[in-house]
């Protein structure tokens, strides 16, 4: 099975547009993916037929909306192999999912003498919450460095774990800058060897859209997901957790729907996952995320991965052969996803981005919310082209053309 990109593209209204008479070439899915008709239809179905609040209505609109909202939870659980739908907490995005754990686990349970281990490859979403929690609690923040081959430094990680004080490990599944796919099982085993009780959170923002993921098999405590990068709508993400972890945690946000009883004297928290969903949830967005899982499963995540692996190999070859282009990231397509960071000699990424825009090519430039990694790379910014199901080899030529034009334009 392969992806028939021409057919797939028809499902994405944005990609039907032209920019200055050129086909729009969208190479920024690592920032946010395009949205297929099926996802828009699912949300429309909610707004046009079932528009009501969920969880407490006794009339049919609300009952059906509730059933479908909960069905989305089951759908996402199945899609990522969550241990149980009760371990699926809907959040606004993966950033909120990670903060939930920083507030309701790390801040509540760790203190001076304990350490949290993260890496220099993380998105700020999986770095700043731990930094902030460390400031508040006196926990020590340790950072696994990156090797010259753009993989995590496993040896250094071993040293950072050696004293057994690391009680929490926060790790990205796939780097949004380098494309590196981290060997999770190996890294987690290393951490558990040093401390069998270590609690593990994985930031899956760049993994779930692009690889088959089985959270139960990974045996992690927490796994974060964001909807808008996996063909879903904005405004929804999820924390996937072992239900027993959630049981142990006090709530984070409080308000309606997450309590059983309230008086001035006492409050009885509801059971997970509801304990962690305060107030009116992202109802339409949950409908949309459900449809996004369907779209991806119809393509088949194995097929999605195979398509991207082939495509990234083609792009890497071509960029490697282009004049004045330096790629940051693993060279072996087996070990990386389709986010390709690069530099062009003599052209600042911002200028490159503007030039590519004039060719109808959308790429991202900047620090990609990964300042610690930028420091390590020794640059202020990179350009990044990233691939998804609607990209194909025909997107390569406009990219190369724009890069070459920028080189000529800005040559001194």
């Amino acid at each position: 099975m392969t992806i028939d990109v021409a057919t797939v593209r028809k499902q994405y209204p944005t990609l039907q547009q032209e920019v200055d008479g050129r086909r729009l070439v969208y190479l920024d899915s690592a920032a946010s993916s395009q949205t297929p008709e099926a996802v828009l239809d699912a949300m429309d179905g909610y707004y046009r037929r079932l528009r009501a609040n969920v969880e407490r209505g006794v009339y049919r609109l609300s009952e059906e909306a509730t059933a479908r909202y909960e069905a989305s939870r089951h759908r996402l659980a199945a899609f990522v192999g969550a241990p149980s739908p009760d371990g699926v907490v809907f959040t606004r995005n993966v950033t909120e999912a990670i903060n939930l754990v920083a507030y309701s686990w790390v801040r509540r349970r760790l203190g001076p003498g304990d350490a949290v281990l993260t890496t220099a490859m993380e998105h700020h979403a999986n770095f700043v919450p731990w930094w902030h929690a460390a400031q508040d609690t006196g926990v020590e923040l340790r950072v696994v460095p990156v090797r010259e081959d753009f993989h995590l430094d496993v040896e250094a990680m071993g040293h950072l774990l050696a004293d057994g004080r690391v009680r929490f490990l926060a790790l990205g599944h796939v780097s949004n800058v380098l494309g590196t796919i981290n060997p999770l099982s190996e890294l987690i085993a290393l951490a558990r060897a040093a401390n069998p009780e270590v609690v593990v959170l994985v930031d899956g923002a760049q993994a779930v859209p692009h690889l088959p993921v089985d959270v139960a098999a990974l045996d992690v405590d927490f796994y974060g997901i964001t909807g808008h990068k996996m063909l879903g709508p904005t405004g929804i993400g999820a924390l996937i957790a072992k239900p027993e972890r959630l049981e142990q945690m006090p709530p984070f946000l409080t308000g309606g729907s997450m309590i059983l009883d309230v008086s001035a004297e006492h409050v009885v928290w509801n059971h997970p996952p509801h304990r962690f969903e305060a107030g009116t949830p992202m109802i339409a967005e949950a409908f949309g995320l459900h449809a996004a899982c369907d779209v991806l499963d119809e393509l088949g995540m194995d097929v999605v991965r195979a398509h991207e692996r082939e495509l990234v190999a083609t792009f890497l070859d071509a960029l490697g052969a282009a004049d004045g282009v330096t790629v940051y990231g693993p060279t072996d397509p087996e070990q990386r996803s389709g986010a390709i960071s690069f530099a062009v000699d003599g052209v600042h990424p911002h200028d490159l981005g503007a030039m590519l825009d004039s060719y109808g090519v959308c790429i991202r430039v900047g620090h990609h919310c990964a300042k610690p990694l930028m420091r390590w790379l020794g640059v202020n910014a990179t350009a990044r082209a990233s691939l998804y199901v609607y990209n194909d080899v025909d997107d390569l030529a406009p990219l190369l053309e724009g890069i070459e034009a920028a080189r000529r334009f800005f040559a001194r």
Partner: protein
Amino acid sequence: MTMDDLYQEIILDHYRRPKNRAPALDGEDVHVHHSNPLCGDELDLRLRVRDGRIDGLVFDGEGCSISQASASAMTDAVLERDLDDALELAEDFRLLMHGTPATRPDDLRDGVVFEGVARFPVRVKCALLGWMAVRDAIETYLAGASDHAVTYDD
């Protein structure tokens, strides 16, 4: 789905003329209090056991017709049964509420008419309240205690 699917005549009968409804029970062994705070249903159940059999059982409470009628029908179905048997029957009713056909429809007595409630997800909790309470009462008894309170979520 109309009112009649949900509110069978037998259900309304139990609601209007509940069986075994009382605020107290002579020689009570266990008292449990169960509530669905999100609906506002409250139920007190009192149990007396003799020779491993349900010898006395009364309920009291406040709530919608479904919760009160179901509790009434439940008392009728489990009185005089062995504790194990009653627990099994409660499980049969629970599965019924989740769409599985009853394996012991005759033993459930009027409980079977609540089958239609399964199609009204928000009311399932109401129908279950009495049955979950009796299960809890028996388990509390078997554990050697005499009192228990449970609060359900939505």
